[in-house]
């Protein structure tokens, strides 16, 4: 029996998933159609890496429709005919990192803005007026301004209008996550961006984000601090998407078993145009491959959330909610002050689905699903 792995770093290293391994690529290429069919028909929602390899293979291209049918059934049974809505609130686009793909890069020379608590709450009021109850606080790596005290104070204000508050910010330590949890924040979204160490090093040349291991251990710290929700993902386009999916799945499996009281969700950010992108990226992912990745993960992880943002087009989103998606954002503004419209500032990425929240809700309804605005309650946690 394989020895229990207690550290995701060791798991990825031992399985050669933190590098561009030709062994895994050969395994993926070598899958037969019979292999794929067997995995589609197998007990749904159970993960083992061989299953995922089969579902990501070129042979699986012939069975995408079947994967979609099974994925849809699994998702409906587990999550219902519902789609949960959330919204991002950008509070700062200052960033001390220099990620080569991001509009917030410190070398990109954009307009930077930091919202005061009052300004952020004013933005939140606009968002709440659209019907949202689940909010995601987002910032660049700006530890000088977006401190734990800032976030705790913001959360105290947000709790009046929102049932659930998550953060997508720079990595914190366990004690800091614990303080955020006690302030009413119970979800952490953080993408490894790429699990390939050499690609990671090339894309993150400076700043705290250049530390691969520090980033990788973040969800362990968040989970051990009690965070209920963990959002993970890779930035599609940086490394080979199939290898990234294998590593992502191993990370998910590890987190689900170790932090079994916390819900893991997958996101699928794809490289989109952003101000000052410094390098060319040779692994851009088309729609078909992204859908294959989503379905493969759904067939392996029946109970994981699958999240889609407004980076993606309206027509793609309209189709994907019929497949396996469980949460989407709507009406998003990716620059601080974007909801109020008075502040001109650099966007993190270009939005492709510009529809309002009401329009997206109507689309969900027309597709035969219920848009769910509230699926948590602040009563679950106690503020001091």
């Amino acid at each position, binding site marked *: 029996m394989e020895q229990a792995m207690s550290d995701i770093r060791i798991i990825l290293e031992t399985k050669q998933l933190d590098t561009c391994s030709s062994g895994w690529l050969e395994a993926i290429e070598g899958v037969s159609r019979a292999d794929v069919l067997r995995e589609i028909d197998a007990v749904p929602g159970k993960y083992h890496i061989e299953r995922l390899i089969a579902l990501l293979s070129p042979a699986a291209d012939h069975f995408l429709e079947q994967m979609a049918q099974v994925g849809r059934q699994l998702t*409906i049974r587990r999550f219902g*005919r519902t789609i949960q809505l959330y919204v991002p609130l950008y509070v700062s686009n200052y960033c001390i990192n220099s990620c080569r793909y991001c509009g917030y890069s410190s070398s990109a020379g954009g307009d930077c803005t930091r919202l005061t608590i009052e300004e952020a709450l004013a933005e939140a009021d606009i968002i709440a007026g659209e019907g949202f109850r689940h909010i995601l606080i987002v910032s660049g790596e700006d530890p000088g301004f977006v401190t734990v005290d800032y976030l705790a104070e913001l959360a105290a204000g947000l709790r009046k209008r929102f049932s659930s508050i998550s953060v997508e910010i720079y990595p914190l330590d366990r004690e800091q996550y614990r303080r955020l949890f006690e302030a009413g924040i119970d979800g952490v979204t953080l993408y490894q961006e790429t699990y390939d160490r050499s690609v990671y090093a090339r894309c993150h040349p400076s700043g705290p984000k250049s530390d691969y291991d520090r980033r990788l251990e973040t969800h362990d710290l968040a989970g051990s601090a009690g965070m209920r929700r963990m959002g993970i993902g890779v930035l599609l386009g940086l490394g080979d998407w199939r290898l990234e999916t294998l590593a992502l799945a191993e990370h998910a499996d590890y987190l689900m078993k170790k932090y*079994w*009281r*916390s819900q893991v969700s997958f996101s699928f950010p794809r490289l989109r145009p952003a101000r000052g992108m410094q390098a060319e990226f040779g692994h851009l992912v088309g729609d078909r491959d992204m859908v294959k990745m989503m379905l493969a993960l759904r067939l392996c992880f029946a109970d994981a959330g699958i999240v889609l943002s407004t980076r993606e087009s309206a027509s793609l989103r309209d189709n994907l909610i019929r497949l396996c998606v469980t949460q989407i954002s709507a009406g998003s503004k990716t620059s601080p002050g974007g909801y109020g419209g008075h502040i001109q500032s650099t966007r993190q990425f270009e939005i492709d689905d510009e529809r309002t929240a009401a329009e997206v809700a109507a689309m969900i309804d027309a597709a035969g699903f219920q848009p769910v605005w509230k699926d948590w309650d602040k009563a679950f946690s106690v503020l001091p």
Partner: protein
Amino acid sequence: MDKLVIAGRRFESRLFIGTGKYSSNAVMAEAIAASGTEMVTVALRRVDIDNENDDLLAAIDRRKYLLLPNTSGARDAAEAVRLARLARAASGIEWIKLEVTPDPYYLLPDGTETLKAAEELVKDGFIVLPYINADPILAKRLQDIGTATVMPLASPIGSNQGLKTRAAIEIIIAQATVPVVVDAGLGLPSHAAEAMEMGADAVLVNTAIATAKDPVMMAGAFAKAVEGGREAFRAGFAGQKAQASASSPLTGFLRND
């Protein structure tokens, strides 16, 4: 008359309905009506219990249906108790479906925390309906502290697998001094009928109805199955025989004694 009584309240229908996973509140309301139920459960996480204009709550006619709030999502006793108290303070409802489900994947209930929470809530005057794994000892302990029912799962929530825990539920039914409501995992009307034939007092169904292509028709089907299963139980099942009866029985010699 064969009426179900829970905490002094009589129920005509032995089918209870969950309100999650529906494609719309309108469909949910129709399905509830088609089921003939008299009690529906609502996750406190999904609603603003203090807001009578809450979309989901407004779709449930409280003159016809007893609203049973549930604490699904609570990780431990403290959370469940807090939720229950806040819900009662906001709504005046004293009934609570106690669900302590720390694991967001299988949504299985934590027995230890459920027992702790039940003790506190019963002392606090709540009418407690605890959702549990099919654990006969836990069921007895909950009855000893005064819960109004026990609600053992047939199989994990949403799995539609039917009575995987059949053997344990049989024991729970045999030993029960309160109504036994089989809850979770009933995927087909035949599963519900089977639970009733075994002697369960009621069943609770959510996923199988909400996610069916025609939830309204499925709700009606479950209603018929629950009635049929209950009647079969009352009619007295003759029992299956593994072998045919012998034409020359062994004790025939005693007939003329």
